[in-house]
Structure formats: structure tokens, C-alpha cells
């Protein structure tokens, strides 16, 4: 089916002026995805970008592909229809923490449960950007926003944890300012058969600047984050001398070379393990914060189940046309 075409990121730029605030991570995400698309090896008319409402959800306008700028929270549901209707399309859901975890929470968990082949890019800035700064379901307790002038009282979701609880088969996390990491991960998400969720830690310079500083600032990010890769030991740190080991049911950071620890003692990342327990531990970790593809467990997707069942029914049915029903 797939025609091989050589694209560059420019082929995915629309003629619309990009209208985010100067300095917003959204620009990085846009460019990273535009750079990832040529690596996916699909004709551009096969890509569909579906979004909800929010700063992030303006995304489809900036892509030169098919797209729907939907209504608030419903992108996953609309995209499910697109994909069920035509499993030959590569469907991206572009959404924010408000769009997907507040109003759209239901469609979000159901998409993950069903394991339909969507690529959900969740711009998590821990704030409502477009409506100018109210707390979101990922805002921290105590966070002061326009609707929590004395501090937020609602404990946040951890999107990765929620996703795994909803039986997500693919979860990745990446920093909003990490262009290269994003491009890699988008390619992997697209290649994954099933619902792929990518949480992007996106800095909103206007309403929640610095929310991820602890993890994304150049000076500290190597010490405070761990970028996992399947089959590789979980090592991090500027000097790549830190790693994770399992201590009972807890992950522990150790230093290679200290207390007799060698690289061989470090846990090797297995993104493909169907059992989500270790993945759950990884998504919960705060220091280091785990980035990269944390979970990627391919199963039969919803579309595949649908197609298989339909083929079975067709094979044994005498009904080939409406006329056969009434005859």
C-alpha cells in the first residue's frame, strides 16, 4: 500500500501563520513532529490530525495534512471514528492536559482500553493555556492559578499512571524542549500497533513557566531524568554513572562504581513486558523522572479484531447486499 516518498519537514508545514506565544514549547513539538513524519514513510495524504480545543489543539492548522480541529475533549472519540472508518490512515490525536484529562477524560481512558491504533500526543503544561491560566487535572496541589488564587486543593493525575490503569499498551514521556527525543519517540509511537500515548512535558511560558524546570533545565536535566530505551540498562547522569536497581518493590538510584555496583547490576529496560508493574513503578518515579518509551506492548488492536471478526462473518454469510436481507 505505502508509497515510498522522500519528504522533508517542510512538506508538512501549512500556509497558516503559527500563533502560539513566543517561547512556547509548542513550537518545538510542532517542528519535532514535522521532522518525524518524513521518517514514517507514508504518503502525506494518509496522515490525519485530530485535536480538541486548547492552545495545543491549534496544531492541525499548522500541518499540511488532513485534520479536524474538533471540540473540547472529544478528539480521541472523533479520531476513533476516523480510524475505524479507515484503518489505512495514520491518525494523530493532538490534545492538552485539560482537553484529555479534564473534559475528555472518558474518551481518553476508553481509547487506551480499546487499543485502537491512534497516536495521542498529550501536551501537558499543567495549566489551561487558551483560557488564560486556570488549574488543570495535572496542576500541583497548592499551585496558584486564576481559579485557585489561594492554591489548588485537588490532587493531580499522573497521566502515565492513569494510562496504565486504563490498560495502555504504549506510554512514552518526553521533555517539551527536547526536539531530538521527541522526533524519535513520535516515530516509535507511529510504528506501534495500538493506542500510543506520548506525554510531552510542555512548558507554558505565560501561565505556568518553569513547571518542569527541575527536570528540563539544561544544567540539571541529566541528573534528574532518565531516558529509557528498550533493552538498555537504565543509566543516567551527566557522567552516565547513575542507574536504577530494584530493591524489593522499590526502585532505587545507585551510583555505578560505588559500593561495588557495576553496570551489570542496573535494571535493563523491558518496554515489551505485558506485566505493567515495573512500568507503573517507572512512571511514578519523580527523581529521576523517567522519560522515553516506558511501555510498548503490542497486542491485537481493536481494528484488527474488528476486521478479523468481520471476515469470519462474511465468509459464512449469504448476505452480500441489502437485497439479500429482504429476500
Amino acid at each position, binding site marked *: 500500500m505505502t508509497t515510498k516518498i522522500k519528504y522533508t519537514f517542510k512538506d508538512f508545514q501549512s500556509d497558516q501563520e503559527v500563533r502560539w506565544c513566543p517561547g512556547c514549547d509548542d513550537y518545538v513539538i510542532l517542528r519535532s513532529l514535522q521532522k518525524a513524519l518524513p521518517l514514517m514513510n507514508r*504518503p502525506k495524504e494518509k496522515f490525519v490530525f485530530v485535536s480538541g480545543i486548547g492552545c495545543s489543539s491549534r496544531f*492541525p492548522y499548522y500541518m499540511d495534512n*488532513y485534520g479536524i480541529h474538533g471540540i473540547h475533549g472529544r478528539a480521541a472519540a472523533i479520531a476513533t*471514528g*476516523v480510524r475505524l472508518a479507515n484503518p489505512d*490512515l495514520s491518525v494523530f490525536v493532538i490534545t492538552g492536559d485539560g482537553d484529555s484529562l479534564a473534559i475528555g477524560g472518558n474518551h481518553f481512558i*476508553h481509547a487506551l482500553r480499546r487499543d485502537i491504533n491512534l497516536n495521542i500526543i498529550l501536551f501537558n503544561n499543567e495549566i489551561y493555556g487558551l483560557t488564560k491560566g486556570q488549574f488543570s487535572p495535572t496542576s500541583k496541589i497548592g499551585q496558584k492559578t486564576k481559579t485557585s488564587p489561594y492554591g489548588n486543593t485537588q490532587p493531580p493525575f499522573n497521566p502515565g499512571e492513569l494510562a496504565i490503569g486504563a490498560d495502555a499498551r504504549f506510554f512514552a514521556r518526553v521533555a517539551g524542549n527536547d526536539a531530538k527525543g521527541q522526533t524519535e519517540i513520535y516515530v516509535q509511537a507511529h510504528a506501534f500497533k495500538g493506542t500510543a500515548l506520548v506525554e510531552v512535558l510542555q512548558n507554558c511560558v505565560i501561565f505556568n513557566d518553569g513547571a518542569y524546570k527541575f527536570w528540563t533545565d539544561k544544567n540539571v536535566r541529566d541528573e534528574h531524568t532518565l531516558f529509557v530505551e528498550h533493552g538498555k540498562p537504565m543509566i543516567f547522569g551527566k557522567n552516565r554513572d547513575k542507574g536504577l536497581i530494584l530493591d524489593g518493590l522499590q526502585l532505587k538510584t545507585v551510583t555505578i562504581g560505588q559500593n561495588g555496583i557495576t553496570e551489570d547490576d542496573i535494571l535493563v529496560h523491558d518496554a515489551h513486558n505485558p506485566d505493567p508493574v515495573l512500568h507503573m513503578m517507572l512512571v511514578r518515579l519523580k527523581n529521576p523522572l523517567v522519560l522515553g518509551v516506558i511501555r510498548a506492548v503490542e497486542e491485537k488492536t481493536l481494528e484488527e479484531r474488528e476486521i478479523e471478526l468481520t471476515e469470519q462473518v462474511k465468509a459464512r454469510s449469504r448476505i452480500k447486499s441489502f437485497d439479500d436481507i429482504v429476500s
Partner: protein
Amino acid sequence: MTTEFKKRTDKPVRHLDQVTIRFAGDSGDGMQLTGTQFTTSAAMLGNDVFTFPNYPAEIRAPQGSLYGVSGFQVQIGAKNIDTPGDKLDLLVAMNPAALKKNLKDLKKGGMLIVDTDAFNKINLQKAKYESNPLEDGSLKDYLVVQVPMTSLTREALKDIPIDSKSKTRSKNMFALGMVYFLYGKDPKYTVEFLRKKFKNKPDIVEANIKALQTGWNYAETLELLPAFVVDEAPHHAKEYKIITGNTATAWGFLAAAEKAGLKLFLGSYPITPATDILQELSKYRALDVIAFQAEDEIAGISSAIGAAFAGKLAITTTSGPGLALKSEALGLAVMLEIPLVVVDVQRGGPSTGLPTKTEQADLMQALFGRNGESPAVILAAKSPADAFKMAFEASKIALEHMTPVILLTDGYIGNGSEPWTVQRLKDLPEIKPPLLKEPVENWKPYHRDPETLARKWVIPGTPGLEHVIGGLEKDKETGAISYEPENHEYMVKIRQAKVDKIAGFIPPLETEFQSEGELLVVGWGGTYGALRTAVGQLNEKGKKVGLAHFNHINPLPKGVEKVFEKFDKIIVAELNLGQFANYLRMKHPEFRYEQYNKIQGLPFTVEELVKAFEKLLK
């Protein structure tokens, strides 16, 4: 096993034009099946038929309880029949609760068949009878036929090796056998049906057929029975099926999709009384139908919007509360200008209301239940069989005019059934969606066809026509976001004009019975049968009464003024507080409208209509 049924003895018979029968019993008594069997046989044997099932909201209410009573009413006729009948000629009551709940609908002098075995103390108590109505003289106005059905059935089946419960359960076939005999209907279709249905349980087949025969034979011994005959209806179509409105709706979509060369996508969430459409369409994987049961109504319509974008004939089905939830997304479909059909099988409201009852009170919601100026096409089906036609037409309009269409039916026609003349694809009009499959110079996503004002439908996957559409106001050509004041006004008006223009593509309004006269009766949707019968009766009495019944609500068909101005008075009859009347006041303020309204969760009776209309006649 013998399946012989003794012929009815040839005593003189009474020929009737129509007969209304209701089977009533416990939810577990199989009354729906019994009624359906009788209906099918009568239809196969040439009668016109119309049914009205009426079951409780509870799944399995405790045995013998009043709210657990399930009923199935059918009118059969030697001429055209448009309603399930007002008053009953025959009531079969399987227990005291069934008698209590249904007796009020039996004609004075009508026949009542009861299972006397069920009239024990406990059941009488459960039905809140102070004394046994079979004994206290309260039934003196009726022709009461007391039959110990349970014991007769059990006795007849005593040698068949099935469990005791199954034997008792066969008593509905005993009752059916009696009614078959009474109306001289050959039970052969039921015999066939039983054989097929229980093909792996021969003992059950035998038991049921035996019960049927026993009932038939028992009826013969009751010399008191007059022998009725309802002759074959003369205009009965050669090939037809008895289908419910919900099935007809589902089939209409199947036919439309194939006719348009598209696949059908349904995104839906179960809700009474619309669930049947989802259930029916779930069966047609062989036709590539995708019947997607979503997590809620919003996901139902949203997935349908996605599927429409991706090139399917996309529909979503629901009832009133579900339509309320879909409002916001429906506005998106209006803005996107994509084809989408929404079916609302109306039920009693507001809120959860009366889920198993019928009403026409979602009209205003369908017309106006969205933010902003958000016009959608509104159609309404007149009867179970008409639902096929309207589902087909809704699809055709949605696809050819690139617009959401709301099809209103209701619980009465959704669950009710009547014969539907079989139609094949070749009998149906063409459907030609404005697909654009290849790049055209200077094409823009919101360019419009001058005839219909519809934009082109470009399906993702088409090279060279990539574009993005969305819910923000859009430039009149490119579809890009536009906040320009004049552009907004232009777009609001053109979306309205596109819908208005559809009036040029549908038949103009016509009247039945009279095209001028003293009174015009106006109705819409599922009340057609009752209105038509009532207006027919008035005409038979020599009254100059016309009927204008609307399938098309928005836009209204052309010619409304011309029709309305020919009558002295206009009365709008509907099952709500006057929503269509009010809509007409908006659209045609030059006329004065009387109203007849009923809001009881029940369809109109012909009798009440005739009475109401007569009041307006000199």
C-alpha cells in the same frame, strides 16, 4: 408428532373489517412472542396489521405484580389499517394483574379470555383486587371466557419429558391456539417458527405445538364462541415483511449506504427505545457495517463525525436524553458541513421521564437545541414502515447536501410494527454525494455547489487535497479560521440558506381527503395513523376535513401557505404541549392554529381525535 389442526366447523361466520386484540400477562409469560406470532400469521394470511407492544420498564418484575404486566396489542384488518386500534375486541389476560391493568381498554361487550388457574388468592392480592373479579360480578359487561389454561396445558404435556416450568410456560401457546381458532387463522406459520427456533430441542418444539393444538381444540369445544373472520385486505402488497419502526430505520440506512456506494458507520450508545437500531445493525458485519458501541452518547456522535470525515455514511442513534448530550457535537457537524444522520427515537420526557413510553416532545430540542445559529435538517417518520423511507431519505439529504439531518421517530413507531412492502436497491432513488476525488484547480474546502450550496466532500487519503476543518468560524472560501464580522454573517446565512434550499428537493406539501374545506388537521411524525383514521372517519360522516401530515419539518416543504389558506380552520394535533404548532407560528405567522395535545406517554386514540375535531366543526 402430529401437527394437524382440526378445521373449523362450517357454521356461519361473522365477517369483520377489523379486530383489535391484546395479549396481556406477566413479563415472563411470553406475551410479546405470542402477539408477534399472531400478527405474522394474520399478515401472511392476507390481513393488514399494526401492532403496539407495551412492556414494563423493569426487566423481570416479580411474578404477578401490577407493574410487571406486559402487553401486546394488534389490530388486523380486511382493509387498510393505520393504528393498533383504540379499544379491544378481545383481551387475553393471563393473570389478575393483567386483567386489572388492561380491562379499561376492553370494549363493552368485548370478549375476555382469562386463565382461571392464575386467579388464586396470592395473585389477586398482588393485583390489589379486594375480591375475585371472576366471581364478584364486576365483569358482567363483557363476554368472559374462563379457561383453566395452566392446568389444561400441563395435563396435555404430561408425557413430554421436559421440566415442569417449561410445561407451565407453554400456556401462552395454548392461548394463542385458542385465538387462532377464534379468528379462523391457520397456525402453520407458528408451527414452522417453533420448529426453527427450537431446532435443537425437539421436546420443547413438541410441547409448544401440543399446547397450541390443545388450545385450538379447546376453543372448538366452547360452543358459545361465535366464529369470526377478518378477510384478506384487498390492496395488500404482494411482497412485504412485518417490521418494527426500529428495524425499518436500520434497513433504510443499509439500503442508503449501498445505494450511495458507501459503507455504513454507526456510533451509538444504548438507550431505550432506540437500542434496537444499534442491535439490528450489529448483525450486518457481512455488509461491512461498523456498529460501534461507544462509551457514551458524545463519543457516539463524535466517532460518527470522524467516520463521516473519513468517508462513511455515518449515523448515530439515540433518544431524548442522548440527543441532549449530543447537542454540542451536533453543532460541530453543522459547522464542519459534513453528512451525518442523527436518529432520535423519542420517549416520554423531560429528563429520564418515561423511558418506555412514547411522546413527540423533542421537536424543539431537535430544531433549536444547540448554541448559536445552528440549522440542521429535521425529518420525521410517520409509521413503522415509513421509517425505512425516511431513514433512506435522511441519508440522501445528508450526503447530497453535506449537512447533519435529525430523523425523529418515537417509541410508538419504533417498537410498533406493520407490513412493509419489500423494496430492493433497484426500486430506490439514486444517492450521489458530492465527492471530490482528484485535485481541481483553485479548489477550496468551502467552495459551494450553486444548486445545493453544499461544499465538496474530500476524503482523507485523497492526494493533493489535504485540508483542515474545525469548529471555529471559517473563511467562506478556504475554511481557515476567520474572525471577520462580515464573513461570519455571510457564513451564518449561507449555512441557513443551504438548509432552506432543500425545500426545492423534496415533494411539496399535499393534503389527504380534502384539499379545501372546513378544517385542516395538521400533524407530523408518528401520529399519522391515528390522524388519518380519524380524519377518514369524519370524511365518511361527510365532513370536509383535510389532513396535512409532515415528514419534513426543517425545511418545511413548499406550498404550505397554499394548502393552509384553503381551510377555514387549522388544528395541529401532537403528543406534546404544542411544539409543532409553535414552530408553524414562527414560520407561517399569517395563520391561526388551534391545538390538540396529549402528553400521557400514549399514542392518540382515534376516538379522542374524532371527538376533538368534531368540536371545531359546525
